[in-house]
């Protein structure tokens, strides 16, 4: 009988910590993201989600631990590792003084995207940005800016895609389209996705696995559909609220 080999890892985080003076923002966390997998990074505000994402993006130096993106150590092969990565975050809009096209061209050149002109046109079409092509992105609505941010995040067809609340400012219909696109992206290509969201319905719909962070530690992890039941909760939202308010009760489970 043949055993299916586990999917290759696109991200391996080992013993990752970040200390700011007296505050331990992230406390020795370890996790992986496999190819074709969407992993939800959940937790209340201040749990360490964005700190973790910033360390994986190379814009924050860990105090200890290692980050490997497709077997490339981020600390020693920063450029090569980040060529295979991209991200979109609601708090990091693209420069508002460049047009949609100029932003995509600028970042496409930096990521070294091949056949850039065709890639830009395909993404503009995919994210329904045709009529905004020559508009400065600063004048777009927040939903349109989010779509532009996602188009930028997919420019280099990343092996690791980091999404920090990607649908936070979208209406439900567009949010559903975006979720579908990301699910297709993860399923069809060779990429893995690390996704943070406070929308537990969305997390259940999209993520294959979730990690609950509290006070910088991974408190729980598992399948978002079965994890609440394993901890005596009816829904993922209920579990989230417990993590936020009574993390010690869960830690004792």
């Amino acid at each position: 009988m043949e055993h299916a080999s586990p999917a290759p890892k696109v991200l391996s985080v080992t013993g990752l910590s970040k200390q700011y003076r007296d505050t331990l923002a992230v406390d020795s966390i370890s996790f992986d993201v496999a190819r074709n997998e969407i992993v939800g990074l959940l937790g209340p505000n201040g749990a360490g989600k964005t700190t973790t994402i910033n360390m994986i993006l190379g814009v924050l130096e860990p105090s200890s631990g290692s980050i490997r993106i497709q077997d490339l150590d981020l600390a020693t092969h920063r450029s090569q590792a980040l060529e295979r990565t991209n991200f979109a975050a609601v708090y990091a809009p693209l420069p508002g003084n460049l047009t949609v096209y100029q932003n995509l061209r600028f970042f496409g050149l930096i990521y070294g995207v091949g056949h850039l002109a065709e890639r830009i046109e395909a993404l503009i079409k995919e994210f329904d940005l045709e009529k905004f092509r020559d508009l400065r992105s600063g004048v777009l609505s927040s939903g349109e800016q989010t779509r532009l941010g996602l188009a930028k995040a997919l420019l280099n067809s990343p092996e690791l895609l980091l999404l920090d609340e990607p649908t936070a400012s979208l209406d439900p219909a567009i949010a559903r389209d975006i979720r579908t696109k990301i699910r297709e992206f993860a399923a069809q290509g060779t990429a893995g996705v690390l996704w943070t969201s406070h929308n537990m319905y969305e997390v259940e719909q999209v993520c294959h696995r979730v990690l609950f962070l509290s006070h910088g530690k991974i408190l729980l992890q598992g399948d978002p559909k079965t994890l609440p039941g394993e901890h005596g909760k009816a829904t993922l939202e209920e579990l989230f609220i417990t993590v936020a308010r009574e993390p010690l009760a869960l830690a004792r489970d």
Partner: protein
Amino acid sequence: MHLNRTAALVLRQLYLLRGSPARILPLFGWVAIDIVLWGFITRYLSTITRSGFNLVAALLGAVLLWDFFTRVMQGVTTAFFEDVWSRNFLNIFATPLSIWEYVAGLVFSSIATSSIGLIAMLLLATTVFGLSFFMYGLVLVPFLFVLFAFGIALGIVASAMVLRLGPAAEWLVWPIPALISPFAGVFYPLSTLPRWMQVVSHVLPPAYVFEGMRAIVSGGAASPIALLWGAGLAVLYILLACWFFARIFQHALRTGLIARYSAESLS
């Protein structure tokens, strides 16, 4: 080093210039006003002094060279400020772009923008006020090189200061050329200065350029040794500036400044 990434930063600057008269005008507007103002001052002084001394070459030439230096420095800092103003640090530093590719992009952006200012100044000074750069001869090339290199070094240091201290530190950057000018001896020989100011002058590369320029205007020649000193110092300052920027960038990565850079990020 990937030239495509550096070219992306220059292209970004061109995109911004193309769509913004507020960015285009300062490239040549302020330096043109300086040339016109000093052109008329020079013309007036020539009529009242009648000393036979070539005031056009001494004063207007000095203004032109000093404005060139200022434009080079500001070319680097304004390219950097574009990322500050658009809060783009997280987007840009989470890419494969290395810190050296980024700094090279700032320098090449400055070459593009300061060249426009230099051409505007040369046209105005020669056609309207009769300044002939042929009188400086080939020594004009090292003059421009020293000023360019020192402008680049100061621009990199100023950018590092703003990265470290926050966007409000931009106000510390604009007056830097004015702070240096008394020591650089732009309009007077260094011997005019008190001893302690002369000591400072001798570590400033532009001081060697302006001493050389005055020597030529007086009918002598610029000292090649002094110019070599000036060029050596300017190159040394570029290396030190790059080291300083890299140190500040590492500090920003360690403290999380890059990720949460804003007006309140002073730490």
